[in-house]
């Protein structure tokens, strides 16, 4: 038997290979088996030996063959192959490479970043609002124990109503559920100096108000119980931080000072911390309320809050309060019968259901915008993936693993999205500033708006999720290089990629349609609302508030003298056509309501649903352009004459159905217990909001009920009403420089303000929809341009074969139109499903409004046609020769 091993070791000249016993053994076995086979075939031993050795004989040495074939692969280029070093350094290389790619493709990067900035920016801005309004805990200690309490008179149509002084005091004395129970009410305090007067926004609070909220003054002390009783030393004041800064320049010695408020000296006893901005950011002062047990139980003015004892639930406390209310109703049937109590948590009170719903609609809308942006960037990446097909194929051919290519592409997408996220964050900061500047009152707690770690986290997370979402599919597609496809289709990309791009465009169009439908409904609502007849003539009308709370006007008589003179002076001003005063002007904010009793009615005590009441001077209806039948109030109506009232049409219909109320009598609790004779019926006015139907309103004469303070002065002018602002103020100052005249607004401003939050909704959603439309069109434009560039050769052939350019145009347009129509159909279906959630935001239009559902698709198709037309025209002008040669 020949010694094959020795032969092989001799031929393997390389000692390192020759020393590998296993290789030598394996090769020797092979040669040996060959030898045996040859012998079996009948060869002689010598012939078989020669033949077998042929296996290991070559012109090139055996060792060389081995070495060449077994050479370890050459180290790969950093971006091409598997990382050899540590993971971090290879990711660093990927990042640098990604950055270079982004800089290189500036057009692509710019478009993608714009889409991402808009998407992430809008989302972050809305999220920061949601975070502030809904997610952040209320700025009080243990806010879950805080409760807002109302009186309620369902029979009168008042589900929530302020509490009366004696009722509040009885609740406080009798309940065992609350650690503290506090009441407060708004007050305007006139800060007077020698030549000027200013109204400060304050609240009168009980001494346990701050302890209930868990807040202590930053300087000084809280009110003492002896300062919170009628007849006590109530001339003490606590300043808010903002007012302390503004008025006293943050002087730490402010506690020694006194302020003249309403003509009387008040000692400053404390300053609230800066963080205190409870519901009213413009609040300036706190003064003692001193609740008075002697006041009428029918006079409901107090807002009540309480802190539950630990372990007591709101339901238990409510049960106890209901029992107390029932007891009071038995004890004081004239004022308390039918009155009960309603509880809400602070969160439900401060962030009402409707605000939350609005925010969620907006959040949904921006999420759609982000999805569209993702779709856009994904479609851009897909197109670019096709262009980079050769690069990726070469890398793969050089041995780069798919996972490595995938990682590189994902890092590029993530880098893009992180830059987009950072830009979006900056955009969100800008958007928030705009929001605060233009719509500070659009939502509760908006004054607390700021960016915090949660918002930053959200922006980062949405950027990363976006990056993965739009980066993954194109990366998966691109990292699956297919040599034959690449060769076959040039830089075109496969049909699967094309399908994916079509799918993205259809999705973007569908989402934009859904958003546009939402925005369209809001625009239609707003349009309807602006055309609502408010019930008064808002042109050339100026209003202003006048506050007579100073010591010089202690009673109705003094005030009446002041207003009589003011009205006659103002009427004499050039440019003033009419002038009147009123306790509240329509849409001026605030409301007053009264119980109504009808005489001689069979049912029960004759109590019927209540009415809003207003105290107006003679000439009020004429000044505001409210139609009036019967007679107006006049100077002959005094406290001594027969009490008279004017009803609104709605009140007349409600209380005297089918009858003429003029000459009939009615009891209105807010004007006293005497029956009042109806002397006229005035047109209905939307007093509280344009979107709310005018409820029953009753009017009393300011010549009789002259104690109300502050009053509005309204003037009808011959020209521009705002031009008379200075002369109105001067007229007040001429009578008494210590009387503050403030809140000067034209009726147009009042209407605009009352529409503020709806306008805000409309602008916001409209803005999102516009972004969505823009992004969808950019997407469509991109896909159609790409399609044209892909089909250049095909189009060239068609043109060369004599196709009319018009038919090429139609070909491309119909392709784009097909994608758009599919998207529109899906979007309309989505819109039908989604707009139901917007019902409370709408006015005068149904969520399925035909006009919107028809015009939005038409708009989108029209815009899409424009987006397709440019590439289609390009296709039409393809030069067949150039097109064919380029392939």
């Amino acid at each position, binding site marked *: 038997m020949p010694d094959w091993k020795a032969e092989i070791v001799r031929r393997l000249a390389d000692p390192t290979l020759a020393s590998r016993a296993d290789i030598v053994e394996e*090769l020797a076995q092979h040669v040996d088996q060959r030898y045996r086979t040859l012998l079996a075939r009948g060869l002689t031993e010598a012939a078989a030996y020669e033949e077998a050795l042929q296996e290991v004989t070559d012109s090139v040495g055996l060792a060389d063959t081995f070495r060449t074939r*077994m050479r370890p692969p050459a180290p790969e280029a950093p971006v091409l192959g598997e990382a050899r070093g540590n993971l971090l350094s290879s990711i660093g290389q990927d990042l640098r490479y990604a950055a270079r790619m982004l800089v290189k493709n500036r057009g692509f990067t710019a478009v993608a970043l714009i889409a991402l900035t808009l998407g992430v920016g809008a989302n972050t801005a809305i999220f920061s609002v949601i975070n502030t309004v809904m997610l952040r805990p209320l700025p009080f200690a243990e806010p879950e124990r805080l409760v807002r309490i109302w009186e309620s008179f369902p029979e009168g149509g008042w589900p929530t109503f302020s509490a009366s002084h004696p009722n509040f005091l009885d609740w406080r004395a009798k309940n065992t559920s609350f650690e503290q129970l506090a009441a407060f009410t708004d007050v305007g305090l006139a800060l007077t100096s020698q030549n000027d007067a200013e109204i400060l926004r304050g609240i009168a609070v009980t001494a346990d108000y701050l302890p209930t909220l868990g807040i202590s003054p930053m300087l000084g002390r809280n009110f003492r119980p002896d300062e919170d009783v009628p007849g006590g030393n109530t001339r003490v004041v606590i300043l808010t931080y903002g007012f302390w800064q503004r008025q006293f320049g943050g002087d730490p010695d402010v506690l020694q000072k006194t302020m003249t408020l309403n003509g009387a000296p008040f000692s400053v006893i404390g300053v609230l911390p800066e963080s205190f901005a409870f519901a009213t950011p413009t609040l300036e002062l706190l003064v003692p309320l001193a609740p008075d047990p002697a006041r009428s139980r029918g006079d409901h003015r107090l807002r009540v809050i309480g802190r539950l004892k630990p372990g007591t639930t709101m339901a238990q406390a409510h049960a106890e309060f209901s029992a107390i209310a029932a007891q009071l109703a038995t004890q004081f049937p004239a004022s308390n019968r039918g009155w009960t109590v309603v509880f809400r948590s602070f969160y439900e009170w401060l962030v009402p259901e409707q605000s939350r719903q609005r925010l969620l609609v907006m959040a949904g809308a921006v999420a759609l915008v982000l999805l569209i942006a993702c779709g856009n960037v994904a479609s851009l990446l897909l197109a670019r993936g096709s262009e980079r097909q050769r690069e990726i194929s070469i890398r793969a051919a050089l041995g780069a693993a798919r996972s490595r290519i995938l990682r590189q592409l994902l890092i590029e997408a993530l880098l893009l999205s992180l830059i987009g996220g950072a830009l979006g964050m900056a955009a969100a900061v800008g958007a928030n500033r705009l929001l605060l500047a233009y719509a500070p009152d659009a939502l509760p707690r908006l004054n607390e708006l700021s960016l915090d770690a949660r918002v930053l986290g959200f922006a980062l997370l949405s950027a990363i999720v976006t990056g993965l979402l739009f980066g993954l599919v194109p990366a998966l597609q691109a990292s699956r290089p297919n040599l034959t496809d690449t060769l076959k289709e040039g830089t075109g990309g496969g049909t699967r990629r094309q399908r994916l791009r079509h799918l993205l465009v259809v999705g973007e169009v569908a989402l934009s349609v859904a958003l546009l439908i939402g925005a369209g409904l809001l625009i239609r609502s707003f349009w309807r609302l602006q055309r609502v007849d408010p019930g008064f003539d808002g042109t050339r009308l100026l209003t202003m508030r006048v506050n007579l709370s100073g010591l010089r006007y202690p009673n109705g008589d003094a005030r009446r003298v002041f207003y009589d003179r003011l009205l006659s002076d103002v009427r004499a001003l050039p440019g003033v056509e009419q002038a009147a005063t009123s306790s509240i002007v329509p849409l001026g904010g605030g409301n007053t309501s009264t119980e109504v009793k009808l005489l001689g009615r069979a049912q029960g005590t004759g109590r019927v649903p209540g009415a809003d009441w207003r105290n107006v001077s003679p000439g009020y209806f004429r000044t505001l352009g409210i139609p009036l039948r019967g007679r107006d109030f006049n100077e002959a109506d005094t406290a001594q004459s027969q009490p008279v009232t004017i009803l609104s049409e709605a009140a007349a219909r409600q209380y005297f159905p089918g009858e003429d109320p003029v000459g009939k009598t009615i009891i209105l609790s807010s004007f006293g217990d005497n029956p009042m004779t109806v002397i006229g019926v005035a047109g209905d006015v939307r007093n509280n909001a344009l979107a709310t139907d005018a409820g029953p309103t009753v009017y009393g004469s300011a010549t009789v009920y002259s104690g109300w303070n502050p009053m509005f002065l309204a003037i009808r002018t011959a020209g521009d009403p705002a031009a008379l602002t200075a002369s109105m103020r001067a007229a007040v100052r001429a009578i008494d420089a210590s009387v503050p005249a403030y809140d000067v607004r034209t009726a147009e401003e009042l209407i605009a303000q009352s529409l503020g939050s709806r306008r805000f909704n409309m602008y916001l959603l409209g803005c999102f929809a516009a972004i969505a439309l823009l992004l969808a069109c950019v997407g469509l434009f991109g896909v159609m341009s790409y399609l044209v560039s892909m089909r250049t050769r095909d189009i060239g052939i068609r043109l060369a074969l004599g196709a009319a350019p018009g038919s090429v145009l139609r070909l491309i347009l119909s392709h784009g139109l097909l994608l758009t129509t599919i998207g529109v159909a899906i979007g309309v279906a989505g819109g039908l499903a989604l707009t139901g959630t917007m019902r409370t935001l709408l006015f005068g239009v149904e969520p399925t409004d035909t006009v919107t559902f028809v015009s939005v698709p038409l708009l989108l198709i029209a815009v899409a046609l424009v987006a397709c037309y440019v590439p289609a025209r390009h296709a039409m002008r393809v030069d067949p020769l150039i097109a064919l040669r380029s392939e």
Partner: protein
Amino acid sequence: MLVKNVYARILDRELKKGSAEPIILALLEQRPRHGYEISQMIESQSDGAVRFKVTSLYPLLYKLEKRGWLQGRWVEKAGQRRRRYYRITAVGRRVLAEQRQGWERFAAAINRIVEIRHA
């Protein structure tokens, strides 16, 4: 004639270069085999048209093993000398599937070219 022979040799060499890997992987798809068995099967199944010598077969086997497509293991059976058997790995199976596809496309491409020539 001479020209034709030269082309035939080049074609043979090129085909072998490109096809050696799938051939080996395919032969190991069913069960593990040792080197000699592999060379015999190639020869017999190609009716002698393709033959790998030790100098081309084993370096290739070692290379594929190094790539992780194959795994070689010495096996001793009663009454026989020990032999090194090669088994295809999971990675090897995936590579084989890809190479099969590539081969099919390549063959289809050739067919197309041939058809065009005939047209």
